[in-house]
């Protein structure tokens, strides 16, 4: 029904576009040059107002009313079951909804039937009223704009102003996303910290991670939410990845920018780009099926006890994934070192290698550092490779042949396992928030360095 009213509003706006346009033409009385704005602008003005009023009413009233109705029903359920916890109320409401929608409810009962009836009647009132309000509002807006049309009406200026505001709104989506991320993460993280009695240090510096054991009535045990094993595992896999990615990526970038012939570049660059375009889940499959058994067998033949999901395997494959990242960013900065610096060095008799080592690389160093930082931030936040190839149990070790787990693995494991989502969401969002902060700092520093570096040579 609400989809239908959305379509109706869209159609209505097109109708008002045509009406306004025709009225503008009519009011010009045959000589269009008399109009302040071209007829299409009059039409656009009506169209925009109709659309905006219609959709704002549809979404605003629709969602607001739904929230109100839910709060109301929850209050009724709470009255009926004063002793049950909030989550039980939620369950009753979900069942009632299922009954009302004709789906299968987990349990049925008189209370659920009653709530289902209330829900169904409230829901139909809500939908019909919302649809009516939205369509009526859209029509009214269209009608008002239609009435304003005459040859002096500055429709162009007004509609362009509106469009400019819409453009700004689109750009602001970026800020809203960041705000959304922060709000989403901070709220639940604070709940989690409150849950463990504000022992934030136990989360950040504790060494025992098994958050879902020892949960009693949603209360987490602060001694079992120590995330140090996860941080250490993430750190180790990141280090291994960077040990693979930085030398390979950097040497590849140097070779491609200063040594390779055009023909070599023509196939080597796309090769690296292909490596960048492979989805991470494919790298994860590769790590789990090919690299991890290879590492295990090699370790076994050397007489080393090697886990079949060792940090080494996951780290190596992650390194391969980051190679193109490092190489393309370094390639950019090496290429943007001015030719005059190189020519100066050659003029003094330095060889190509000496020029690169002593002139180009020092000049490009800030850019390379920021490339490495961005690479680290990628490795820290990478999920699929470690989920598929690294371990799942928290294990505090320095041995890269053992299985370790990472922050991202735990986020996925806690959410896909046989867990109570309500309890799991605390640790999950706290880990997510930590991850966000770390990558934010890394990105911020890297972007600052790049910016400053660009200013240096531009």
């Amino acid at each position, binding site marked *: 029904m609400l989809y239908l009213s959305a379509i109706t509003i869209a159609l209505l706006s097109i109708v008002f576009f045509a009406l306004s346009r025709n009225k503008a033409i009519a009011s010009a009385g045959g000589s269009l040059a008399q109009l302040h704005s071209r007829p299409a602008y009059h039409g656009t003005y009506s169209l925009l107002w109709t659309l905006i009023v219609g959709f704002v009413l549809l979404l605003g009233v629709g969602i607001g009313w739904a929230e109100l109705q839910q709060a109301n029903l929850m209050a009724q359920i709470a009255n009926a079951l004063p002793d049950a916890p909030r989550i039980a109320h939620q369950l009753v409401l979900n069942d009632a909804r299922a009954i009302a929608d004709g789906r299968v409810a987990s349990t049925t009962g008189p209370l659920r039937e009653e709530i289902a009836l209330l829900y169904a009647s409230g829901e139909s009132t809500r939908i019909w009223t919302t649809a009516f309000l939205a369509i009526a509002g859209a029509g009214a807006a269209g009608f008002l704009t239609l009435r304003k049309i005459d040859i002096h009406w500055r429709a162009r200026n007004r509609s362009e102003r509106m469009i400019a505001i819409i453009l700004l709104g689109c750009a602001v989506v970026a800020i809203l996303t960041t705000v959304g991320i922060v709000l989403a993460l901070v709220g639940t993280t604070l709940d989690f910290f409150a849950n463990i009695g504000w022992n934030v240090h136990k989360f950040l510096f504790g060494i025992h991670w098994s958050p879902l054991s020892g949960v009693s009535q949603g209360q987490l045990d602060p001694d079992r939410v120590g995330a140090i094993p996860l941080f250490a595992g993430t750190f180790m896999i990141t280090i291994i990845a960077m040990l693979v990615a930085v030398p390979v990526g950097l040497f590849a970038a140097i070779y491609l920018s200063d040594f390779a012939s055009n023909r070599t570049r023509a196939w080597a660059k796309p090769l690296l780009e292909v490596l960048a375009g492979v989805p991470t889940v494919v790298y*994860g499959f590769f790590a789990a099926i090919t690299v991890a058994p290879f590492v295990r067998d090699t370790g076994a033949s050397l007489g080393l006890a090697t886990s079949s999901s060792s940090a080494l395997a996951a780290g190596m494959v992650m390194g391969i994934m980051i190679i193109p990242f490092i190489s393309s960013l370094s390639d950019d900065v090496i290429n943007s070192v001015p030719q005059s610096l190189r020519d100066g060095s050659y003029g003094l008799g330095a060889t190509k290698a*000496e020029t690169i080592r002593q002139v180009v690389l020092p000049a490009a160093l800030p850019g390379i550092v920021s490339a490495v930082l961005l690479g680290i931030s990628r490795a820290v936040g990478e999920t699929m490779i470690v989920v598929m190839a690294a371990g799942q149990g928290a294990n505090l070790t320095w041995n890269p042949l053992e299985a370790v787990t990472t922050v991202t693995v735990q986020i996925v494991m806690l959410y896909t396992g046989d867990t109570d989502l309500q309890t799991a969401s605390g640790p999950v969002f706290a880990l997510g928030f930590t991850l966000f902060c770390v990558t934010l700092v890394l990105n911020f520093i890297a972007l600052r360095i790049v910016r400053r570096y660009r200013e240096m040579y531009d």
Partner: protein
Amino acid sequence: MVDMTELSKMHGSEAAASRMKKRHLAELRLKAYGMIAIFLAGAALVTLLSSVFSNARFALTETYITTEVFLDPAEIDPQGTNDPEVIGQASYNRIIRDLFREMFPTVTSRSERRELNDLYSNGSVFELRDTVLANPDLVGQTLDFRFIASDVTDLYLKGDFGTLDVIETDAPITLSFLGDGVVSITADRDIFTTELALVRRDLARLAERRLEEASRQEAGVVEFTRRANAATDAEVRDQNLALAEQRAAARDALEAEAADLIRRSNDPNGFEPVLESNPSGFLQVNGGWLKLTAVGTNTAEARTIIPMTEEIAQPATYQYLINETPPAARPISDNKIVWIEWLQEQGKVDSVFNWRFFTAADSRDPELAGVWGAAVGSFWTLLVTFSLAFPVGVLAAIYLEEFAPKNWFTDLIEVNINNLAAVPSIVFGLLGLSVFITFFGLPRSAPIAGGVTLALMTLPTIIIAARASIKAVPPSIRDAALGLGASRLQTSFHHVLPLAMPGILTGTIIGMAQALGETAPLILIGMVAFIVDVPTGITDPATVLPVQVFRWSDFPERAFEARTAAAIVVLLAFLILMNAIAVFLRKRFERRW
């Protein structure tokens, strides 16, 4: 002024030449490092792709067992009602089960019967039912039906569990039938030494393991004796001595066992039982199949798996076969291997291109699982992503390039966009989970929730690409439009945007390709559920290709490994297609100013 002869002497000296050589060597080294780096990256890519393709090849074909089935009216529609409901509820499972039992009448034990049911897929039951439902006149008739083989059957025929190697021999053999299907075989020459050698090799290995265990017990003996000697307390000493004695006894037992094993493994004329851990030997004779249960040099004992058509004591021809993979190391028993071989001999087995993989949705049975459901889910998700991210991204880019004043607010937007481009995707998953699913109440595991989340994720990519592309349009175009009296908005939308469009579309397609390969955020918003229906809209529960890959890679069945790799190939094919379109757009429409 510098004396030129002195200078040239300095550069021409021996030391200078060797210095020069060293410097050039350093250059060569740097160049070599670069080439090695490129080579390593290339090798990684080749290994990755070949590992995917070599696994995917097992999913290329599927196997069918074709056989006659009599659709007994007494079983399907005893009242002759012709009512689809009655016909649909008949037990086709039983019909097929009985059919296979009739084919192998010697199968009597429960466990063997269960193995027999494992030859064909559960899906054949539904297919038979659907066939009959589609054409109820078939009831009472006999028809040739193609039953889908189970994943194990399929993989065996593809050679994944070892192959039957024919041992060339023409030595005449004599069979004596000891009853109960047991056959004793005597040959004129030592033809069973091949199997015996394999058994003896395994015995030697087992002996080695026993000796290793014995040496561990020996270490225990030494340790406890040392503790006993060091102990001051009599009680502790006795305890340790007792432990040492225990260990010594265990050691002696192990050593004795090892000695016996070594003796047996060294005896070239022994008569050894063939165990589950030994490679299996088969004899195909008189139209039946025997499995060797014990072998000597020229004698062997065997049990019948497929009975012979005629019990000829001195057959003119026979075939002796060995599967080097022992039954303990493969998920398929010797019985099943023989049944499959027999079916193949009868011409009842054929394998065809695996269309099912491209047309079916997910399933718990690997032989029935396909990627179509996930592909459609990906389509709906990307549709939502595109219809949100493209307009918003392009409009934001126009604002930032053409309208934004240079102030702190614009800076804030830019910093945000650059930062969002580097935020880990899983964080977007958490955002989608708490904002779109919990707060706005979008349906879990539906393309709409996934699409919106991915749209926020691809937005920075599209904005950055669109800005670069808009920036590349020369100012003269804008100046000309403004000069003719166009407003800034008209200039942007009528002149700049059309010229920038190819670049924007290229960037958008690349962003979409990224979104297509994204897994982690979709897992968090619940698109990992097991969904057997193909989604028909953006609010149906769905899964997407990369998540399907992730799910299948988690399943223990060997056949899913091939399915996973094949799903990856499909995913990569879509990515290549999208990137090819992007490259084409760039080559065809991009203008250099």
